[in-house]
């Protein structure tokens, strides 16, 4: 196990390095950050001063060399726009995004799995057809539109929930979280549901397909014949076996939730990383874009690792092999 993890970490460093080159090269091809930054009225002299102050007067390979040298010391550069450490700005926004993504993930599991299992067991029932139709909607309606509809219905028309922003936060272990206050929770509900909708549908489908396949297997029949209660058969024997694909997919999707909650965060003005990255792309804030993508690469690498470990716990057949690995 340890060898496996170490090997994966070494691979990850390589992935991060290649990504840094691609991302840095990529952002340097697009647009002119100075044009995005300076006042219209700035004259030629002022523009040149700004170019120098951001180090953009040097050729790209020198810029990249400096970037790698600094990054090796944990310095991912200063944001062009805010003038502060890019990493610091991103880390500041991280709790909001993680909170939102975790809330959505929780919903996907708590709502998606029971519904999926139910419709797998009773695939002909009317309720199960409703669930499946609902999951098609969840898949196909664009997040942007659904978010706006949520705001229209629940905030503007009914007035039940606030429309945008993050509510009151309290500090928990040094991190600002909003789910512990009523005000914060009320702000969290709409964006979390909006973000979760697609994942819930996904989990329903996975759980249903798994259930339908496994319920006919010999070991389930055997368990029944042995006289185990239906509850135990479903909760232990069935659940354990449908969880493998669900965990894999959810693991990867969690990375996606963090990295690409852009749309939901923009619609709900949620002060997370997604909103930051879209602002940074529009303003060509290269250091923030690069630092963000570096972090996302790390997040994906870590999640994949966690998924692999979870795998082996859930299914003894896929024990990670130390020796061969």
């Amino acid at each position: 196990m340890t060898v496996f993890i170490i090997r994966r970490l070494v691979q990850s460093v390589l992935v991060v390095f290649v990504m840094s080159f691609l991302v840095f090269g990529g952002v340097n091809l697009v647009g002119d950050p100075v044009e995005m930054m300076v006042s219209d009225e700035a004259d030629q002299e002022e523009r040149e001063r700004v170019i120098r102050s951001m180090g953009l007067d040097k050729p790209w390979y020198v810029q990249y060399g400096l970037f790698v040298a600094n990054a090796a010391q944990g310095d991912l550069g200063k944001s062009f726009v805010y003038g502060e450490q890019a990493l610091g700005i991103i880390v500041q926004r991280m709790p909001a995004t993680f909170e939102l993504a975790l809330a959505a993930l929780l919903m996907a599991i708590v709502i998606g799995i029971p519904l999926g299992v139910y419709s797998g067991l009773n695939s002909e029932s009317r309720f199960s057809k409703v669930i499946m139709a609902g999951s098609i909607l969840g898949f196909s309606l664009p997040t942007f539109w659904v978010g706006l509809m949520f705001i229209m219905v629940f905030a503007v028309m009914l007035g039940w929930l606030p429309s945008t922003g993050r509510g009151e936060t309290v500090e928990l272990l040094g991190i600002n979280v909003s789910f512990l206050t009523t005000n914060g929770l009320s702000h969290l509900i709409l964006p979390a549901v909006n973000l979760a909708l697609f994942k819930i549908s996904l989990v329903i489908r996975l759980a249903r397909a798994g259930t339908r396949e496994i319920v006919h297997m010999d070991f389930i029949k055997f368990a029944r014949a042995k006289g185990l209660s239906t509850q135990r058969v479903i909760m232990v024997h069935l659940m354990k076996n449908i969880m493998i694909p669900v965990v894999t997919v959810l693991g990867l999707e969690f990375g996606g939730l963090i990295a690409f909650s852009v749309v939901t965060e923009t619609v709900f003005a949620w002060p997370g990383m997604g909103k930051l990255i879209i602002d940074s792309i529009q303003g060509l804030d290269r250091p923030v874009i690069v630092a963000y993508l570096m972090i996302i690469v790390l997040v994906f690498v870590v999640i994949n690792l966690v998924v692999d470990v979870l795998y082996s716990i859930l299914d003894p057949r896929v024990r990670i092999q130390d020796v061969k690995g």
Partner: protein
Amino acid sequence: MQIRKTLVLAAAAAAVSFAPQAYAQTLTIGLGTEPTSIDPHYHNLGPNNQIAQHFFSRLIEQDHKQNLSPGLATSWKANDDTTWEFKLRKGVKFHDGSDFNADDVLFSMHRGGNHPNAKSSFGLYTKGKTYTKVDDYTVRVTTAKPYPLMPVDLSSVHIVSDQEKDKWEGEYNNGKSAHGTGPYKLVKWVKGEVLEMVRYDGYHGAKPHWKRVVIKPINSAPSRLAALLSGDVDFIDQVPTVDIARLKKNAKVELSQGVSNRIIYLHMDQYRDNPQYMKSHDGKPLTKNPMKDVRVRKAISMAISRDLIVDRVMEGVAIPAGQLLPEGFFGRSSKLMVQKYDPEGAKKLLAEAGYPNGFQATLHGPNNRYINDAKIVEAIAQMLTRIGIKTTPDTMPKSVFFKRGKNKGPAKPAEWNFQLVGWGSSTGEPSSPLRSLLGTYDKTKGWGSSNRGLHSNPVMDKILDEALATVDDTKRAALLAKATEIGVGEDQGIVPLHYQVNTWAGKKGLTFKARTDERTVAYDVVPN
């Protein structure tokens, strides 16, 4: 229906009873664009300056029409063509309790022009001037040459306390050094989340109505509107033009509109001989650049129906333009009128210029910078095609557009031959657009930095030079008007389209003095 109504009422009642502070004392604003810093010298840009002016004062303030009024200077006058004297206000205190005097002015002028991290410094306004302290409440500013724009320049630089030496944007952003003399004090700023301020009771000017102001950045326009309609915010800026008609019918919402100093216009390549985006009808390269001919430029202007663009594309929320600034501004020409729509006349001019059948061109424009920019480009392309200039519209995000549309001098002209852009005259008079958009490119003088078509006319340059050295207001206004008549009128160096009109929306009972500089200022929002 009855049940739903009751629910809404119950929810509304609940919302009111849970509100932490009385509504009448707190104003919550949903803002389309967030500042990049609280430091007033870090980034000379509208979104920053509009926030800075809540916390900091200037020697001379600009009101909502950009007229100058006394700020920290109670009076100012030109002793002679090169010497200006500013009398400072006595008894003013900064938010941290320290006294305001001439040292703070000298410090601020130096800091404004020399901020090491500035993304766009205020050097534009502070350089070329020598500041001397005569006594604690008198500052003298001298220039080498006559310099009439002195009051306008100094109305753009915010004054900070000289107690805050060696404190940069970091200390301002976290509130430690954000002490000005403005009407509000910073409480906290969490980027992307909230900016909170409270009234400063020691403010030297008129006391603002709101005790507390909470600003929430909401850059998605539909979400911003929803936040207003749901009551989460009291006031929003940048209302999309498509929603205006519907909001006018909404009894709970009050709109405030006003023309801005921003003109939308077309640049035409008047430099290259072989323009790459212009071709003859059979697709062959042109032997000469048609846009170098003033008749072609005039034909383009005549072929555009500004009324139609304003009416259909802008939903009536814009004003057709015939020069650089809308009515009411200093230095405007009384002779220049909005070009009438005249496609027949345009065809005639094209034929005279040697293009009876026209030619092919591409009109480039951004699609996320100005109000409805991409739609305007498409409309104009159709109008020009009608007179024989077969125009292809090509729009792209501003981050890509501006790099390729920028001129870097005659050695590296803008890639586009024909482009739509906008210009806001933050000084509130035409010298800045004349200098930057129409003045002959000259790096040492700082002219023509945004002259994307590399237009050049020495006659206009000379008049503008003279205007910039004339301290007498009446004479200067006449010279600026004359320069505009040549650059925009006779020469058609650019084709003006319209002035943007900005729209703000608030809850019923809140009115806002719409500002020509497009800024959203909390103390200008007042209950009526």
